[in-house]
């Protein structure tokens, strides 16, 4: 009990003395963990959106060349209906005229989009639904590789191919985010270690005397380790507050206002994320003080 009180008071006194440095270290810890939190929340929201979208969309569109003959079209249709994963009752043929009508209907508020078209640029197409939305990729692959008169098929599109592109973009974001978080975490470790070095330097005389009267190494080290860890803890607390603010004031609003995107945060995500951020703060603080102690405190 005696010892705990001693360590706590030593830690607090030292933190107060190096206030500016400690604040800087805490800020960097907070920024790195805060970005981590946002990347995780953003990624979670996005992947939930994708999952929702994929669950709903089992649709594949096949665009045919204008040169396609009637026999070729029949062969293609027979092939499409014959794919086991495709729902045979949901294979529909849409002529280019129908497509144009649909287009006009969809953009009737913006007639300038179609008013000046003299020749219909839209192709004839098939629309089909898979039995199970998750087979979309499989079906697209089969059409691409096995369909007869492959050169008559100009394009095969599914909602998932658009999603895939989005996924790639978000993947890049995530990678950049992770690299950034790691870089910031390293800087945070170094900054924490600088504050500990300064603290060690400020107390070098006292440390010498402690060694002289037979203080054990850990007795000397503990206050510094605690100082590093408390910097990490305070930093992670700030990061959690920021992440919470972002969630309440930005993400929740996005989820409400962009309902068609079906954004959502997994329930329970924060219950995992926040403890991880606290742990991250402790690890950063402990690493920072361990580094400083290893280099500057010979015991």
């Amino acid at each position, binding site marked *: 009990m*005696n*010892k705990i009180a*001693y360590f706590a008071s030593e830690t607090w006194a030292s933190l107060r003395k190096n206030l500016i440095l400690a604040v800087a270290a805490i800020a960097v810890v907070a920024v790195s963990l805060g970005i981590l939190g946002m990347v995780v929340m953003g990624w979670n929201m996005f992947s939930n959106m994708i999952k929702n979208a994929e669950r709903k969309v089992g649709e594949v569109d096949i665009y045919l060349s204008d040169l396609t003959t009637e026999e070729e079209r029949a062969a293609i249709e027979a092939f499409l209906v014959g794919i086991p994963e495709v729902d045979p009752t949901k294979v529909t043929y849409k002529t280019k005229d129908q497509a144009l009508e649909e287009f006009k209907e969809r953009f009737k508020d913006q007639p300038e989009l179609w008013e000046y078209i003299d020749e219909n640029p839209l192709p004839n197409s098939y629309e089909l639904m898979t039995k199970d939305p998750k087979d979309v990729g499989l079906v697209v692959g089969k059409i691409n590789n096995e369909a007869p008169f492959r050169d008559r098929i100009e394009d095969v599109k599914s909602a998932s191919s658009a999603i895939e592109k989005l996924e790639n973009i978000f993947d890049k974001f995530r990678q950049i985010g992770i690299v950034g978080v790691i870089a910031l975490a390293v800087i945070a470790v170094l900054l924490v270690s600088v504050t500990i070095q300064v603290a060690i330097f400020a107390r070098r*005389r*006292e440390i*010498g*005397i*402690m*060694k*002289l*009267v*037979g*203080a*054990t*190494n850990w*007795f000397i080290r503990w206050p510094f380790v605690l100082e590093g860890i408390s910097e990490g803890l305070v930093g992670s607390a700030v990061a959690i507050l920021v992440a919470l603010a972002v969630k309440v004031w930005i993400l929740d609003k996005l989820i409400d206002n962009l309902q068609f995107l079906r954004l959502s945060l997994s329930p329970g995500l924060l219950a995992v994320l926040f403890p991880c951020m606290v742990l991250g703060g402790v690890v950063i603080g402990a690493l920072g003080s361990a580094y400083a102690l290893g280099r500057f405190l010979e*015991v």
Partner: protein
Amino acid sequence: MRRVTKIYKGNVYALEDVTLDIEKGEFAFLVGPSGSGKSTFIKLLIKEEEPTSGQIYIADTNIDQLRKWKVPYLRRKIGCVFQDFKLLPHKTVYQNVAYAMEVTGKSRRLAEQQVPEVLKLVGLGHKLDAFPDELSGGEQQRVAIARAFINRPPILLADEPTGNVDPSLADGIVRLLERINQAGTTVIMATHDKAIVNAFRKRVIALENGRIIRDQDRGVYGYE
């Protein structure tokens, strides 16, 4: 403490092929001019420096083979007093002495009992709450001795304890060490204060250029 053998080498020979025994309960002066190796001798005993070769035994333990984490426990058995006192300026006399107990994990209540007692012994029972810079050199050294003695170490090392003390008070410091010695503690005092050595007539170990040039019981400082 017995069979202290050490050969300390390097680019500078601080101690060279030194072999000696100091028995339990002895009081020995370690004399010699500056740079003769007195301080190195002391640093080796508290394992602040490692010998280049040779072995040092304290209470039949070879301290070369001591594990690193055991060094603090060695130091608790050896009280140390230095020329520059090494007191903490922002702590009071009481706190400075109590610090040595705190650091070794003794309870606060024990410190409250023992610290005033020991400070009374060194003649500072009335200055518990003074800060080091309010005291004279002699008084500060008494605080340092109280701190070195508070954990009742079997060995007390003093490196030029009278160096920063008014000559008229130096006598009292050594007398204090003598009293500690009479209570059973082995005392080794490094000094180049001729008057003191000659006055107290203890064992004198004379070092010069890292070698022992003389070792006699009830000796004097020797050559001019």
